[in-house]
């Protein structure tokens, strides 16, 4: 059992409040990702879970037991560090078995465990090498092996892939996902890479300034962001944010390339009812595309736009235009991207637009 409950955890360093009351319930076997910009407190939260830093107030429950006051070694938690933190003078086998050695596991059992883990991670042939003789990807595997060897109740990953090159990162990402499927152990994973977060997580906790902004599945976070920060942080290229006036009928006034448009959106009746006059429109780039007859519907609207710049990405092309004087990204097919320029016909799918309060950045539903 490896459920983990983080309850009202705060952490202050001197007068700086780094964690401001964190509440997260992590189910047994869940893959939870903590994501946020640097300085948001995600690594501090990780360290408090590991017991490397004490919480100022609050409680940590591991499988229902209060572990708030326990030392790291008594929490049955293993961690993979960003820098791998392999012991430089020990060979791979000893690096993997060190935790077992410190816990008094007999030599024979340790050797067997090293064999199992190294087979699982395909590092059998490296067991006699020192960390300095390994490549980045190999070190990464050894670091994971060290965590796996003890079969702990919870694994913590602190930005484990950020020191790898792009190709290896994608490979290891898949490997971690497979590993989680296979082991089914609870994982808490810190990253600032939102693609990693989207691809790996069962649930994502988006953090900013020591506060969890939103906790939800990748789809919830992506389609239903709690506020403008979350909406802007998740997704690449990022969501478009366009400040708009609200017309008296609840539609949004958009001015693009000399045309004035009125966008009637699913939330229009709410806006009218609540008498809201200004909003920030949040629109994912993939909702603004070349005309696709097969996707036509009530919420799809055709319009023409001028695009100044196109950025071909291979699978699709990002075209940059302007709404209400704000740069806006559209995601076109490569063919449409080639034709993009003055007065390009496009369509906008308004079914998934989100609205934010211009002052607070909070979601208007």
């Amino acid at each position, binding site marked *: 059992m490896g459920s983990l409950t983080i309850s009202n955890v705060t952490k202050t360093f001197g007068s700086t409040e780094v964690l401001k009351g964190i509440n997260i319930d992590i189910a047994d076997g869940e893959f939870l990702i903590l994501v946020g910009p640097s300085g948001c407190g995600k690594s501090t939260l990780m360290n408090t879970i590991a017991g490397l830093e004490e919480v100022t107030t609050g409680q940590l429950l591991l499988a229902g037991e209060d572990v708030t006051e326990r030392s790291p070694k008594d929490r049955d938690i293993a961690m993979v560090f960003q820098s791998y933190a392999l012991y430089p*003078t020990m060979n791979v086998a000893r690096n993997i078995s060190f935790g077992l050695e410190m816990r008094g596991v007999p030599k024979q059992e340790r050797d067997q465990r090293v064999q199992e883990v190294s087979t699982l991670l395909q590092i059998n042939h490296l067991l006699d090498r020192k960390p300095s003789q390994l490549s980045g990807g190999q070190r990464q595997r050894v670091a994971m092996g060290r965590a796996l060897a003890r079969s702990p109740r919870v694994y913590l990953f602190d930005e484990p892939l950020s020191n790898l090159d792009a190709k290896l990162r994608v490979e290891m990402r898949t490997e971690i996902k497979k590993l989680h499927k296979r082991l089914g152990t609870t994982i808490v994973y810190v990253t600032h890479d939102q693609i990693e977060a989207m691809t790996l997580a069962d649930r994502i906790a988006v953090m900013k300034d020591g506060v969890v902004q939103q906790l939800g599945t990748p789809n919830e976070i992506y389609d239903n962001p709690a506020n403008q920060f979350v909406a802007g942080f998740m997704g690449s290229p990022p969501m478009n944010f366009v400040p708009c006036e609200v017309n008296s009928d609840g539609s949004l006034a958009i001015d693009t390339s000399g045309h004035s448009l009125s966008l009637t959106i699913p939330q229009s009746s709410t806006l009218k009812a609540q008498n809201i006059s200004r909003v920030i429109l949040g629109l994912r780039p993939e909702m603004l595309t070349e005309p696709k007859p097969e996707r036509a519907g009530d919420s799809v609207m055709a319009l023409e736009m001028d695009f100044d710049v196109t950025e071909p990405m291979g699978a699709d092309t990002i075209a940059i235009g302007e709404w209400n004087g704000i740069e806006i990204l559209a995601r076109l097919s490569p063919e449409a991207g080639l034709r993009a320029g003055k007065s390009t016909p496009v369509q906008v799918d308004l079914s998934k637009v989100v609205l934010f309060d211009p002052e607070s950045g909070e979601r208007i539903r």
Partner: protein
Amino acid sequence: MGNSNMSIGRYAIYACLMIFAVLYLMPLYVMITTSLKDIEEIRQGNLLSLPAAPTLYAWAKAWGSACTGSECEGLAPFFFNSIRIVVPAVLISTLIGALNGYVLAKWRFRGSEFLFAALLFGCFIPFQVILLPMARLLATFGLANTVTGLVLVHVIYGVAFTTLFFRNFYVSVPTELVKAAQLDGANFFQIFRHIFLPISLPIFTVTIIWQFTQIWNDFLFGVVYSGQGTQPITVALNNLVNTSVGGKEYNVDMAAALIAALPTLVVYVLAGKYFVRGLTAGAVKG
């Protein structure tokens, strides 16, 4: 022919270096040759000439029978006094320094930076300042004129330096290693023993050479805090040179000085390359 101009410049530089090398080595040469001559030859001969009939008489006398004050047993007993002082003092101060450095680098606590600064201050306290208080302290502990007392003095004085060395070395060790080991279940001393000690050879070498040289060559503490039978070799050398029975035996003086200087030379020759490596260890990440 620009090449020959170059080489003339080169020759000038080499010649200059040679002259200085000779100048610097001259005293050593004089000491060694003089120690191998007999006293007659020294009186009559040239200071720079090679010994006509090399003899180890002066070395034997300096070691075994020269007079240091009223006794005439040579330097041998004092040499062993020095060993008895230096070995424990070096080992203890180095071990304490290693632990201190480990704590100050990786187990920061409230006020640890202040403590480190205060400890550093210890490196700059002149010997003379502590002479009287230390004498008082040793008397209180009943350690006046004992080898233990001298060891204590050297350990206390050395800890500031050894801590500085080890702390600066360990600061460059990634803290994540400590965290990883903590999660692996290692305690404070296990982390020190399994993670830190194995990477510490260069800094141990530096510290041991430094401490050995400092303590072996110390004269002031030796002369102040030692008593009959516990004097270190530096004090004995001074006494030997200042005691004259009949004429002055320069060859014995020279041999005695060489005997007193030999251990530090040996240590440096044996471990010198680690010394240089260790001093620059913090600069380049290994």
